[in-house]
């Protein structure tokens, strides 16, 4: 079995076909979230049951519009909160994808779940629906941090959800670090608790202030913003702790035990192809990147009147440069291919080598300090002819 950070696995991932399905419904809108989300209080949410029904119907219609393809190697339901629609609805979506495209043997079938949704019934239902991977949106094991993040669950609920899922699924813990007010100790404790649950996978993202969110408004009015140095400390703390717990870092923000890296994630950074279904979903097929509308009403109207819910599409400019830009996110780095000589001569890359941020050897560019990956990516973009 190839290691999570191996070149072999990364090369495989570039050939995988996946599907992303967006389930936008949430119990509440988290103050930092800028995803395409439908939460109570939004327009057209006075009859939530009906809205969900219409949405799922539209989603199934959209799946039918997509031309036939090879069997899928990975299916990922994200959100929003996919767990909020229940196992039966999830099962219908998976079944539909299987009948339309086929789901390959040994494929990854994964959903994101919020701790408050995880019950014995849900676990049973998901297993019956063919789900083999669950990512739990734990975010933190510190209740004060959870409150700051506007989450609906407590740390106890999160621990219980993990306990239920780890034995049955490839189970991932999703964490957010570096919220203002989160101490280094709090984070250390969150990491320890997460590792003690013995998950197969761990994702940790630095809290980011996204334009237009409630958090962004607050920061603009003078509230404390996340501190990049604090986030760097916490990032490094996790790197050390995860390594000690035999979780292998295979991407900037992702760790896994051998055999449990996330296919959908590796495929994204391997410039792989994927279909995107649902509100605000993105697809990448045959050199074209497309995106769906973000307004639920526009999405419903389009599909209910026989149109595609697409908001735009672009043909990838300089796909080879894009391949480098994406590939550097992975721990195994990226094959420089035809760029090898140009990269060796590039003053910006030479500086990054000198500063110990990257290494260029055996035809590959590898980021040694993933915290500076965007600096590397921006430099790589200037390689273009």
């Amino acid at each position, binding site marked *: 079995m190839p290691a999570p950070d191996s070149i072999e696995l990364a090369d495989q991932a570039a050939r995988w076909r996946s599907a*992303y399905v*967006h389930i936008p419904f949430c119990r509440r809108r988290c103050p930092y979230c*800028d*995803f*395409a989300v439908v939460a109570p209080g939004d327009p057209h949410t006075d009859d939530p049951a009906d809205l969900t029904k219409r949405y799922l119907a539209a989603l199934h219609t959209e799946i039918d519009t997509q031309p036939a393809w090879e069997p899928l190697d990975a299916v990922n339901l*994200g959100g929003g909160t996919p767990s909020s629609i229940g196992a039966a609805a999830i099962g219908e979506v998976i079944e539909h994808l299987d009948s339309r495209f086929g789901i390959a043997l040994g494929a990854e079938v994964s959903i994101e779940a919020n701790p408050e949704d995880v019950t014995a019934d849900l676990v049973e239902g998901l297993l019956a629906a063919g789900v083999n991977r669950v990512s739990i949106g734990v975010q933190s094991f510190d209740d004060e941090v959870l409150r700051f993040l506007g989450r609906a669950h407590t740390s106890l609920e999160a621990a219980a959800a993990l306990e239920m899922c780890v034995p049955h699924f490839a189970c991932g813990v999703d964490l957010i670090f570096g919220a203002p007010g989160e101490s280094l100790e709090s984070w250390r404790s969150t990491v320890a608790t997460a590792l003690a649950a013995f998950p197969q996978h761990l*994702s940790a*993202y*630095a*809290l*980011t202030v996204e334009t237009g969110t409630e958090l962004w408004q607050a920061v603009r009015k003078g509230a404390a913003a996340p501190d*990049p*140095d604090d*986030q*760097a400390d916490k*990032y490094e703390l996790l790197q050390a702790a995860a390594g000690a717990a035999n979780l292998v870092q295979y991407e*900037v*923000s992702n760790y896994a035990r051998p055999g449990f890296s996330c296919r959908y994630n590796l495929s*994204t950074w391997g410039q792989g192809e*994927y279909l*995107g279904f649902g509100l*605000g*979903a*993105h*697809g*990448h097929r045959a050199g074209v*990147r497309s*995106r769906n509308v973000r307004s639920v009403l526009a999405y419903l109207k389009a599909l209910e009147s026989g149109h595609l819910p697409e908001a735009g599409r*672009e043909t990838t400019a300089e796909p080879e440069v*894009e391949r480098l*830009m*994406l590939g550097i996110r992975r721990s195994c780095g990226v094959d420089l291919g035809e760029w090898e000589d140009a990269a060796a001569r590039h003053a*910006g890359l030479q*500086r*990054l080598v000198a*500063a110990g*941020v990257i290494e260029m050897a055996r035809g590959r560019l590898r980021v040694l300090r*993933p*915290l*500076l*990956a*965007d*600096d590397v*990516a*921006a*430099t790589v*973009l*200037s390689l273009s002819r």
Partner: protein
Amino acid sequence: MTEPARIRNFCIIAHIDHGKSTLADRLLEATGAIDARNMRAQMLDTMDLERERGITIKANSVSIRYTPPGGQEHLLNLIDTPGHVDFSYEVSRSLAACEGALLLVDASQGIEAQTLANAYLAIESGLEIIPVINKIDLPAADPVRVAKELAGILGGSPDDIIAVSAKTGAGIAEMLDAIVEKLPPPEGDPEAPLRALVFDSYYDTYRGVVCHVRVVDGELETGDELRFMATSMLADADEIGVHLPASRVVKKLHNGEVGFLITGIKEIDLIRVGDTVTSAANGANRALPGYNEPKPMVYSGIFPIDGDDFERLRDALERLRLNDSSLMYRAETSRALGFGFRVGFLGLLHMEIVRERLEREYDLDLVTTAPSVQYEASTSDGRILKVSSPQDLPDRAVLESIAEPFVKVMIITPSEYVGTVMELVQQRRGEMGEMTYLSPTRVELHYQIPLGEIVYDFFDQLKSRTKGYASMDYEPAGYRTSELVRVDVLLNDVAVDAFSTIVHRDKAYSYGRQMATRLRGLIPRQLFDVPIQAAIGGRIIARETIKAKRKDVTAKCYGGDITRKRKLLERQKEGKKRMKMVGAVEVPQEAFVSALRIDE
């Protein structure tokens, strides 16, 4: 032709915002030179920058036909003048082409320092002055007080001063009559060999250099073979014309007339504004009285961010110089910034305008270093070196003394701000001279101040401390030896010549500290710790550290949105391009100028 007795050549002297361009518009309209339909605001300000900033940079001219009631048709040539302190050289050129001037003053503001200085200049040049009070329609207008003030300065009775509103047109007819009656017609000898003054020129992509000329003696005819007297250059009068304000080609320009001349000369530096044009054969023996050569007051280094743009920058400067003969430059090499130019400017506004035009019209990304004045350094072997760039200051071992240029500054302010103005001037090492009350509420103050202390932000400070009411003008007042030192800045242990500045010894320490703090805020964090030090000679007087950047990575990409991720990274890449590599450190453009903007 119009006989000289029916020609009036005049300019308008006014402060910014006192309504000169609007008045010119109104004149064009009132005389039917242009109908209201084709009118666009500020006809004479042709450069985009001029209209945007509401100022006139280039002298322009327009000929207006006007028949006073019951009289004969006259030709009124309005020669526009710039309205900013930086452009007094341009004013002097315009004045030399005129016999009279309208002195235009805002009825709510009163006369401003620079207008007064230009009025004195016009009087010294022998021009007849017609004082005009504008904006009498404003609620805050106080024409009686302003008329008294003007009469006090120019002599005569306050009752004789014409009051107009360029906005409503009130008083315009009276003003036109005054121009005809009070201003003298041009003199000059129609039979003498041709002498025409080049008082402005601009570059036209299709036609080459277009000269604005005032014929003083003789006549200028299409097809004439001409000689430019200062350069002895020969050329043909390919085309002659007048601006009405639309260009109209004419066959001849006679003595006293104003118009344009196209010779087919396309090379940039060949025509010198201020030169005299005469006939190639049997031409005049003596050129018209020369102008003052424009003298740069402020120098700054201009460097392309991308070293490959050096040649493009050179071409752009050459082209700008055609329109702006006051622009002086020479190639300069900086260890930090590579190849560029040391450029002399008439003042800070001039510097800003040149930089903006280079970036906007020639699409160049530039670094402009802090402005400096020209010092005189005396060395132990008895030589005196002109130093317009701090890096050219001789080594301390041979440096005996440094002299700096002083200026005579005139400030006019409401009397309630005298205290705050004095305080500002003292901070800038100014010495108080005379103080005169123009009226019970307005004071004219005179100072001697080192030029280096006012080039940067003195004018802004003066304005903000007097709520915008004070105005100023200055003229050179020679060199004096001062206790000056060079403060160097070391970035990552390497001296960055572009950050070196010459300051007074008493201010060096606080200057160095501010500079280091300021730079720490302006230079983004790098891949390693970057020490910033300020030093005099070898002695470190301040130190700051830019801590290494530790995190530069975005969270996961939402739902596979690679397009957005790439856009963000492309923007980051563009940001990097606008940085100048100084040694191993990426320094943003703004740092070079902003760092030296020292707070009081």
